[in-house]
């Protein structure tokens, strides 16, 4: 009996604290796979966000710093400048990156910091229990948009890839999803690309991953996958928004 595929070495074999069906778990495994493949675990410094991924240090075996809410790009900027030879991964949720941390991500992107960003867009604030995020869809009910998000007063969901694409120093921007096996495989390729770019000194690269938060959305995991397919993909088209190589 040979093992063909199992838990990547860089990540924990213990259970995570993520809810059943949470997309963070899939992304975690993809990171583990890419880190193993590129052999960068010992060169890697990860910035964990405030959000459900806050305890990433319990899940990935590398140096980790837990950042204040929204500030991972500022923290990462400093770390990368202190250690330009190290690999710096910025991991952020949509509340973290697109609400409180909007200024920090824009400026890190605009400065063209040579960092890799994984932006987990699950259209809600998972950790605090399912409030409206900047990426919450129109009509989507959350605990702070109980009748569904409306354009009037709350605005439309922010499309982060499109926004950052206007900044010249962003080098690679792709939106992917993890709602299907095929899309998960594409997400892995995008993560690889975004990592490789930093290793090659290309500059600021980000993958935005549309991800399930069944608990925040208050639906069973299977319906969460369908929600991405049927609702999110329309508003957040997948694809490469920038590739300047």
């Amino acid at each position, binding site marked *: 009996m040979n093992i063909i595929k199992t838990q990547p070495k860089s990540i924990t074999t213990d259970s995570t*604290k*993520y*809810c059943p069906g949470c997309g963070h778990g899939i992304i975690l495994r993809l990171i583990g796979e890419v880190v193993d493949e590129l052999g960068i675990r010992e060169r890697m410094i990860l910035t964990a966000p405030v959000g459900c991924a*806050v305890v990433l240090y319990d899940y990935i075996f590398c140096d980790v710093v837990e950042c204040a809410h929204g500030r991972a790009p500022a923290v990462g900027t400093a770390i990368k400048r202190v250690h330009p030879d190290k690999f710096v991964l910025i991991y952020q949720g949509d509340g973290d990156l697109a609400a409180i941390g909007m200024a920090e991500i824009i400026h890190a992107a605009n400065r063209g910091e040579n960092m890799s960003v994984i932006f987990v867009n699950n259209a809600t604030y*998972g*950790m*605090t229990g399912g409030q409206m995020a900047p990426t919450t869809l129109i009509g989507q009910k959350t605990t702070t948009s109980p009748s569904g998000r409306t354009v009037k007063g709350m605005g439309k969901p922010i499309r982060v890839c499109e926004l950052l694409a206007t900044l010249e120093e962003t080098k690679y921007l792709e939106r992917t999803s993890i709602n299907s096996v095929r899309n998960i495989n594409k997400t892995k390729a995008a993560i690889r690309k975004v990592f490789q770019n930093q290793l090659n000194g290309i500059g600021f690269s980000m993958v935005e991953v549309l991800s399930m938060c069944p608990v925040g959305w208050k639906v069973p995991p299977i319906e969460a996958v369908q929600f991405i397919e049927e609702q999110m993909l329309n508003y957040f088209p997948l694809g490469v928004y920038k590739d300047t190589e």
Partner: protein
Amino acid sequence: MSDKEINILIAGFGGQGVILVGNVLAYSCIDAGKNVCAMASYGAEVRGGTAKALISISDYEIDSPIIERPNLAIIMNAPSFIKYIDTILPGSPVIINSSMIDMDKAPKSKHDIVKVDATNFAIRMGNIKVANIVMLGAMIKKTGILEPQSVTNGMKRAFYKGKKGLYYINESAFKAGYDMIA
């Protein structure tokens, strides 16, 4: 048990309706004219683990909202049993969901254990989610801390907030649980 403060622990995993039972109890106390104070272990910023609610009921003013040693408990699953059983005052009634706790494998304890096959019964009733109210019914019968009428009144108010229709199946669940205890 009704002359001193009753401190109830309700524990299970998220989704088993632990907090709901706490709310029902609190409403029932309003109906019964008793003082009550409830604390749920609230939506942790990080997911996972067991859920728990602590409810104090008294005819007098309730001071500390912090309960160190509950003197009554409803326990919905095995991990909660293991985690909390030692915090409960020895000799206190502990209503356990025997559908999910195998007492043969469970640690020995000095409590007045009452087994209720709640989850299996609830599945048979057609809604696994009412297991918590089955347990509540059993607890009320066992302890007599509140009149059943107060509890059903409390349930009316608790379910009024959410979907009203849910009241009926829960009322049946409560009665069933109540009747399970001799």
